[in-house]
């Protein structure tokens, strides 16, 4: 299957069509608006599917590339493309957006503005994963903040303003440093090559001297670490999740957090291999602290949503552990964990939202015995729970196991600590499940709860299917990722593989990356 139209641009900007249509609809007609948004997102999902089939899984280079002049004076261009790493994140985004919009039927306030924000958010998210120009990337990165800020701040819970501002400032603090780093990188490249460009691939081939690379790495890393979030930059997350509306939480956990990990993989680590070798122990430690800390704090939460939020800290820690361990299994595990966390935590947030719509409380002690009154709901929650705690056969296991297995090969100590998450995750999730679903129904308001309706069942079926699919047959994903992962590893630890490059024939893109590292060595 080949694609001969600008597919990435199409799926990035198609939601704007929906925005335009919604703008023309009378704001009283909430159902029309809802369906317009849902259909727009669904069409976009369909449009994104050819990406998977047309993607050449044997190649590590960027595919579906489009380049157009944008601001020639600055050397900024509209340059987009995806590889095996971003491919699945784009698909995850279009997929979760559909589910999130379908899960937003309970939004009654300013439906029109809500749906517009959501579709704009989708544009920005896809843009972030496709951009291959640093300025373009930064633009989408910042653009994403605004609709998310609004989603939390307008449609959120009681403390929404605090949470929205906290989310915004936290992210901005990192972004500003990243902007400074991008500009430094830009000028650095200019000094050496006398060419003004924000192009990712050109910048990546520029050698960066030792000390400068450390600072730049840290600047990027801070921005991304906040987004992941890594301990100790995580405290915006529980607040944002608790206050955000359901769909906001789903997107926040499912996609926005992945931008942090994606940032490490796409920019931070391939740009600065020298810094990676220096700082790896620090980031591995933070990842492991996050894994354990997140799990333990999740265990003692009284609010279901907060519990799931802290579990994200733990899961993303596993992801970072895999990525920083830098071998094929660990990075693949980290990548899979990104997708799996999007599915399992996305599903959990959807489910929490469904019961919140009925009972308007998320306190665990308000529930109990729900399995009796809502058996279908309980079943889906059970599947999501076991997906989240990495039961073999479901998706969560694939990522967790590969990440830990890989990490163990290079950093056994960190991997052993990280593996404790398998015990803790069972503790917090099953304890939650027990308190919410088991025992007798004690609170009278729970006695006449209605089980899921068709729309809700459809949402859950849609998200459960990929859980089983990835758990039982992850090869389609793994094999398409593999070349990109190998390239990433080679870039991120360029110093160690340089010798190999001379002996074996490596893809061209890899040699370009390695050349930069070699000349760096010459300068030092």
């Amino acid at each position, binding site marked *: 299957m080949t694609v001969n139209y600008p597919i990435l641009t199409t799926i990035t900007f198609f939601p704007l069509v929906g925005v335009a249509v919604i703008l023309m609809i009378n704001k009283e007609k909430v159902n029309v608006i809802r369906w317009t948004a849902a259909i727009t997102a669904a069409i976009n999902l369909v449009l994104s599917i050819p990406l998977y089939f047309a993607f050449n899984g044997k190649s590590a280079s960027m595919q579906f590339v489009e380049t157009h002049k944008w601001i020639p004076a600055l050397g900024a261009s509209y340059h987009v493309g995806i590889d095996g790493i971003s491919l699945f994140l784009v698909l995850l985004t279009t997929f979760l957006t559909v589910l999130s919009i379908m899960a937003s039927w309970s939004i009654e306030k300013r439906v029109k503005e809500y749906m517009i924000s959501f579709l704009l958010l989708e544009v920005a998210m896809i843009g972030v994963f496709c951009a291959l120009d640093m300025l373009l990337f930064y633009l989408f990165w910042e653009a994403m903040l605004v609709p998310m800020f609004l989603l939390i701040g307008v449609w959120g819970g009681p403390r929404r303003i605090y949470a929205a501002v906290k989310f915004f400032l936290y992210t901005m603090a990192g972004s500003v440093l990243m902007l400074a780093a991008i500009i430094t990188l830009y000028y650095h490249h200019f000094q050496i090559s006398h060419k003004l460009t924000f192009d990712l691939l050109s910048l990546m081939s520029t050698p960066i001297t030792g000390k400068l690379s450390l600072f730049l790495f840290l600047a990027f890393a801070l921005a991304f670490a906040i987004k992941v979030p890594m301990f100790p930059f995580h405290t915006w997350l529980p607040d944002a999740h608790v206050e955000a509306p359901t769909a906001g939480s789903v997107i926040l956990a499912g996609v926005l957090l992945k931008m942090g990990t994606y940032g490490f993989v796409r920019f931070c680590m391939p740009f600065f291999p020298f810094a990676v070798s220096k700082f790896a122990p620090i980031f591995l430690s933070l990842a492991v602290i996050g894994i354990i800390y997140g799990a333990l704090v999740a265990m003692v939460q009284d609010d279901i949503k907060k519990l799931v939020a802290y579990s994200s800290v733990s899961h993303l820690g596993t992801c970072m552990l895999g990525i920083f361990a830098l071998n094929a*299994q660990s990075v693949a595990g980290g990548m899979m964990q990104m997708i799996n966390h999007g599915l399992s935590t996305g599903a959990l947030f959807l489910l929490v939202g469904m019961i919140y719509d009925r009972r308007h409380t998320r306190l665990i002690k308000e529930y109990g015995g729900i399995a009796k009154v809502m058996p279908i709901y309980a079943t889906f929650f059970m599947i999501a729970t076991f997906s989240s705690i990495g039961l073999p056969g479901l998706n969560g296991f694939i990522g967790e196991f590969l990440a830990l297995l890989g990490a163990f090969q290079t950093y056994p100590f960190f991997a052993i600590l990280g*593996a404790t998450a398998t015990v803790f995750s069972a503790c917090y999730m099953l304890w939650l499940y*027990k308190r919410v679903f088991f025992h007798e129904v004690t609170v009278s308001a729970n006695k006449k709860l209605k089980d899921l309706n068709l729309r809700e069942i459809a949402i859950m079926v849609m998200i459960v299917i990929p859980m089983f699919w990835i758990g039982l047959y992850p090869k389609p994903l793994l094999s398409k990722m593999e070349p990109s992962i190998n390239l990433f590893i080679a870039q991120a630890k360029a110093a160690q593989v340089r010798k190999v490059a001379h002996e074996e024939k490596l893809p061209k893109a890899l040699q370009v990356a390695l050349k930069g590292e070699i000349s760096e060595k010459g300068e030092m």
Partner: protein
Amino acid sequence: MLTSICAVIGFPLLGATINGLFGWKIKRKAHWVAVPAIALSAIFALRLFSQVLAGHTFVGDLYPWLVIGKLHVPIGFQLDQLSVFMITTVTFVATWIHIYSIGYMDHEPPMGYARYFCYLNMFVTFMLVLCLANNYVLMFVGWEGVGLCSYLLIGYWYEKASAANAGMKAFVVNRIGDFGFMIGLFLIYKFVGSLQFNDVFAHAHEITPAMATIITLLLFTGATGKSAQIPLYVWLPDAMEGPTPVSSLIHAATMVTAGVYMVSRSHALFNLAPLSMEVVATVGAATAFFAATMALVNNDLKRVLAYSTVSQLGYMFIGVGVGVYAAGIFHLMTHAFFKGLMFLTAGSVMHALHGELDMQKMGGLLKKMPITAITFIVGATAIAGIPPLAGFWSKDEILAGAFVHGHKVIWFVGTFTAFLTAFYMFRLIFLTFFGEPRDEHIHEIAHESPPVMTIPLIVLAIGSALVGFAAILPHGGVAGFLNHVLASGHHVAEAAEEGGGVEHMLMIISVIAGFAGVGLAASMYLKGVPNPKTLGSTFKPIYTLLYHKYYVDELYFFLFVNPLVGGSRQVLWKFVDVVLIDGTVNGVAKVCGWIGSGLRYIQTGVIAHYAIGILGGAVILYWLRLLFG
């Protein structure tokens, strides 16, 4: 053969799927799906057994699963003497337990009924995957999968707090073991570069003995969780909250023996690590004894059987630990029959008495429910090691193996435990089925169970009586069959051949131990000499200690659970997160606010003030330049 293997696994999977998806519609007819599914599976398993018997074995992949870099883990199966022995036992016992369940669960609401059979089929599926996998990761799928079903079935009556807690406890405790198991797998991959059984065992000798010891100990950690050995046995007694057929199938006959199977399957690694073998045997012996003592004083019908299971699993680990793997697996099989049977009979008693489990309230049930009573006695005689019933053969092989290989202390503990086993089992029989009824009301309602329940009892009783003879079949019996896999290149087998004369003596000693136990129980609980009540009060501290299960649960809570939960809440969350990190974050915001509101006062709007400010600034800059310039 791959097709047959897929059929063996596929039928129960299909059954579980149908009941899972359409259970709301099938309701009370769920067993019409579940029972044929498992029966077909058993038939295919038997077919495979005959093929293996004829010398055909199979290793092959269904499809690639985890493939990245040089890691290659397929969904693939291995059919050899060991795995076929396991699946035949599992499917055979499971089929009868499924049938029994029709009668036992007939008071359940329709939805619950379908849910139950869905879980039961699902369990068998995972158990078969566990046994048939050709690599450690797929085995781990089955391993955790049976844990999932165990969790679901223990918590089947989830409205009961005790059941919900027990389910969770089982899963979490198992996860602790699995943590070790997983690290073991990581190490194997690191040193062998593969997780496929064939590769691992072929290259096992490349691993240094020290590393082999670490790996095997980690694998054994997983086994202590799944197979309820010290220190992770605590979940199994609580697991009795589940429906009794579940206790029979999962928590006696099959799942809990997975650890024994895994150790036997990994014998090529364990053989490299004598220290680990020593640990396995010692833990097994300690658990066998320790659990038996707790069974001595318990009055709960099912809990006695649960402790007995823990104890018998200990025997199996003695077997594999001293290197007579085949004996361990043989005991696994005989135990599946007699302990599965005894749980089902206990279930039959419960069913008749509307859930009553306290033996002190029973008595004299022999006349009311003769089939149940007699089949139970057959099972108890088998476990007590009375010849020629099944337990005699397998237990004897284990103890003889221990003695011949120089583990005299373990042999002694094992033999003494055999005495305890006979005692507590017959104590149970005499309290339940003999003597005068101690509760008139309970005696009134007692009745024999319907044929759908008693026929499985009879079948398993016949099995308990006869399967032991498999030991003396031609070609070395069970051991000869299993040793195609288990004794490859191992010295143990020959060693066992030598001690012929000693073996007879050992056999006589263990039979005496069994009879002594029965005799003491008869004297105490039929004749009252010595009187159990006065004995209990004379040795009150010991009795209390045993009755409270050595306070191990309380100890674990005190040492691990409470500090972890309390520490997480008070220190990590309330202090680190809220005070330290968020305090800093909000502090920064506050300081910014203060600075801003402080600086606000210099924004007076009066031009003259600004002019003075500019002048002052210029002067300061000039001074600075003079000073440092």
